[in-house]
């Protein structure tokens, strides 16, 4: 009779605290929390009270009686976890440490650069302390980072986390300075002069190159850019996406690769009711693509995609999924390998588009006269190295397949942050538990590298905030020479189109209004100037000062 965690789980783990019987694991603090692909409910202990479902920001937890047939593997997946990790020594309730309080009285001001999940979780964690106020900056006039510009439009459940972000941003002590670029409109030095602490949560905006001949041809794109394109990122709307050839090759088989493949192979009518960006949707309507080949250099057991996403793909009735394991057999009896075997045996429906999950295959070269016409693929075999890790080794065999577009999805990579140290290898800012040096901190991907899920940033932010509290308490951070009094005016002077909370809420309302008219959750505004224009129409609600005075 249990509740079941499903595909959109983002590891936020608020459910762990909500559960009255401590039956959701791995919990933050459990050794396997950092590496787990999702959280699971122990069916033997769950009392079906539904408290966890109220806590889940991504709408992932459901009573098992409402599971659809394609969601049934999650029942097995939840059970599989507890068979392997029984957590027999769990306490009756998840332990919650008493909130740490600052020893000094403050007030303290913190600037957060980047309004994505990591930035907002950091702000939320800081605002648990009445001594702290937080100003959040972002380059774009709209916040929420990859939740807005990364999460695939067919994953609307995941996007429900916007509701949590809306609660975070409306707390007392929270201010937005959106559409303001640090390093251009305002410098790092100006921030450190005005704030006790500055936290960079700028993510990992770039991706890793393939380093093969022809990678720079037209039609060879980064998956990151492609994702930004269909999600309405203002900088990516004129990306040259060519959908005139019937095949697309995607290199790398992580969740981003699956997202791109689904969007390319999806029947456009199914995307109609999502918040997919308008121009890309038009392009997809006339797309000639019939097949998307996803290349994984290692075998099925080493696939980078997560099991929940595979379950989602396997349950997709509108797309053919072909599994090509290379030379190897798919062994194992877990949900993942069972699904892959089942997919490998599935008949093809010629009316539908096809996603091919190809394993033990790497791109060797991109062919074409200045633009992609074919991809040369080399076969690999697995060889276990000295550390026991299976590595891909080229067999020397290659084949050439025609394709009109190549997407590289081999991982995000962080860009250097102006005035901060940079580790080019990992694409992160070197830090110790979030501290770059006292007064300057990082959280999210720029801190730990591009791993984890949206909610992983919550525990990540807690660690960084702990470092900030340490430094505020020890007095190692010098009192800032300036203050934030008049900062709004200064920023408005330099960037007249600065967007505050009311402005963002106006953009949000307008997008939803446009969407409602078309039966969609929202229609994203993709032009920065238009965003700024909509935002300026927002005005302070009337009588607000009177209401504040009366106190209701």
């Amino acid at each position, binding site marked *: *009779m249990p509740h079941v965690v*499903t595909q959109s789980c983002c590891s936020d783990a*608020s459910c762990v*605290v*909500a*559960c*009255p*019987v401590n039956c959701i694991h791995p919990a933050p603090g459990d050794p396997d929390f950092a590496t787990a692909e999702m959280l699971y409910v122990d069916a033997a202990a*769950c*009392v*079906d*009270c*539904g*408290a966890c*479902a*109220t*806590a889940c920001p991504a*709408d992932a*937890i*459901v*009573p098992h*009686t*409402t*599971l659809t047939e394609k969601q049934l593997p999650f029942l097995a997946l939840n059970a599989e976890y507890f068979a392997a990790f029984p957590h027999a020594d769990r*306490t*009756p*309730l*998840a*332990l*919650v440490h*008493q*909130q740490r*309080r600052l020893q000094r009285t403050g007030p303290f001001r913190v600037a957060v650069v980047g309004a994505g999940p990591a930035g907002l979780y950091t702000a939320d964690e800081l*605002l*648990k*302390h*009445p001594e702290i106020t937080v100003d959040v900056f972002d380059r774009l006039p709209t916040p929420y980072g990859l939740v807005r510009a990364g999460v695939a439009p067919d994953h*609307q*459940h995941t996007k*429900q986390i916007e509701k*949590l972000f809306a*609660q975070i941003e409306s*707390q*007392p*002590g929270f201010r937005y300075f959106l559409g303001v670029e640090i390093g251009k409109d305002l410098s790092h030095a100006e921030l450190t002069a005005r704030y006790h602490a500055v936290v960079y949560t700028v993510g990992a905006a770039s991706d890793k190159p393939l380093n093969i001949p022809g990678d720079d041809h037209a039609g060879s794109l980064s998956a990151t850019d492609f994702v930004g394109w269909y999600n309405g990122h203002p900088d990516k709307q004129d990306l040259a996406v060519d959908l005139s050839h019937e095949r697309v090759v995607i290199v790398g088989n992580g969740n981003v690769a699956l997202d791109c493949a689904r969007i390319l192979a999806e029947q456009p009518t199914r995307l109609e009711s999502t918040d997919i960006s308008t121009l890309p949707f038009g392009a997809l309507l006339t797309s000639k693509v019939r097949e998307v080949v996803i290349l994984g250099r290692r075998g099925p057991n080493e696939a980078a995609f997560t099991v929940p996403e595979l379950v989602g793909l396997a349950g997709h009735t509108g797309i053919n999924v072909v599994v090509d394991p290379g030379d190897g057999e798919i062994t194992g009896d877990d949900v993942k390998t069972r699904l892959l075997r089942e997919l490998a045996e599935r008949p093809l429906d010629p009316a539908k588009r096809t996603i091919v999950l190809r394993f033990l295959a790497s791109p060797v070269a991109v062919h074409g006269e200045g633009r992609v016409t074919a991809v040369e693929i080399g076969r690999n075999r697995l060889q276990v190295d000295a550390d026991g890790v299976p590595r891909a080794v080229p067999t020397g065999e290659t084949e050439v397949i025609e394709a009109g577009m190549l997407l590289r999805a081999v991982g995000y990579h962080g860009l250097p942050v102006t005035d901060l140290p940079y580790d080019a290898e990992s694409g992160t800012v070197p830090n110790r538990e979030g501290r770059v040096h006292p007064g300057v901190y990082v959280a999210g991907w720029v801190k730990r590298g591009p791993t984890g899920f949206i909610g992983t940033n919550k525990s990540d932010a807690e660690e960084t905030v702990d470092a900030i509290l340490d430094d505020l308490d020890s007095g190692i951070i010098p009192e800032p020479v300036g203050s934030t009094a008049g900062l709004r005016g200064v920023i408005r002077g330099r960037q007249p189109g600065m967007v505050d909370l009311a402005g963002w809420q106006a953009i949000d309302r307008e997008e939803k209004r446009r*969407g*409602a008219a078309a039966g*969609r*959750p929202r229609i994203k505004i993709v032009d920065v100037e238009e965003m700024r224009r909509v935002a300026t129409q927002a005005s302070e609600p009337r009588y607000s000062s009177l*209401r504040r005075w009366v*106190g*209701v």
Partner: protein
Amino acid sequence: MTAVKPEKTASAHVPQGRQSYYDTLRTLSEASVTQHFRAFEDIAWDDPAYAVLANDERFILTDADEIGASAWYKSLPKERQIEIGAYRYAQVAKVGRQFEQLLIAGVMQNLIGMKDGNPEFRYAMHEVTEETHHIQMFQEGVNRFVGSAALDLDNVAGAPAWFKYAVPLLCSAGVWFPEAFFVGILAGEEPIDHLQKSIMRAGGSHPLIDRIMQIHIAEEARHIGFAHQYLEQHMPEMGFVKKQAMKVIFPVVMRLLCDVIMVPSKQAREDMGIPDEVAKEIWWDSEESRKRLRDMFGDVRMLADNVGVRDRFSKVLWRVMGIDGRPSRHRSEVASAAH
């Protein structure tokens, strides 16, 4: 107990797994069949580890308890802390049992006239069944304390004397104003649940108390879920007059019943030897205890906001009752210092 309101469709997003009210009741009912606890089967009363012995430091109250958090309590010698702690645990269990009795009596009145086929009947009966076990469990727990070496008394004071005379009146609300009665149920459930969860989240206390609290928290989560669902379903169906009345009744009932359950009666305070001026500070005069009082009702504020009975005018009343503040984001959220 009228027809079920159609689901709201205002938001474009349809939460997955969101069931209709009656389906939720079915889920809760079926869970009560497969996951339930029995007072004399699921607690190893005679396990030596559960023995109530004198001078057991595990009875010392922590900051999770109002008394335990007070400077007065912390300044007492250890033996006195243990004595008071043992009494406090027994006293809360006793009032808890009295509240469960009130709940059963009122629910029974409410169910008398119920029409056939209404899933509310089945779940409410499951809840009553579970509450009978909670009553047995609480009373047996209290019995293990009185007369033990830890507590040299033959009776622990429960709710104040007036409460037992008010019970028939409160129960009858189950018939003529069931929504208000369910608010009363929540007012009894939420504070004690909050207190017990705070104790368990901080690591627990004596094993017998921990086991009792563990069982109570587990099943109470379903009961609270039901009360929330019941009110979310039925409040919007109320007529204008009842709705306006509810805006007043809601915060007043919350605070009144909270005090019955959380504030030890005069007798109990005397038994524990809490001086009046200290008692005044603990309930709820000091800054710290006022925050504690507010924090108990975060989930209730969330519910009240959802059903629209906490508008800007009635919020004044919430403030007067000392239970205003931010609503929880979800059930069982831990309040922060800034709340």
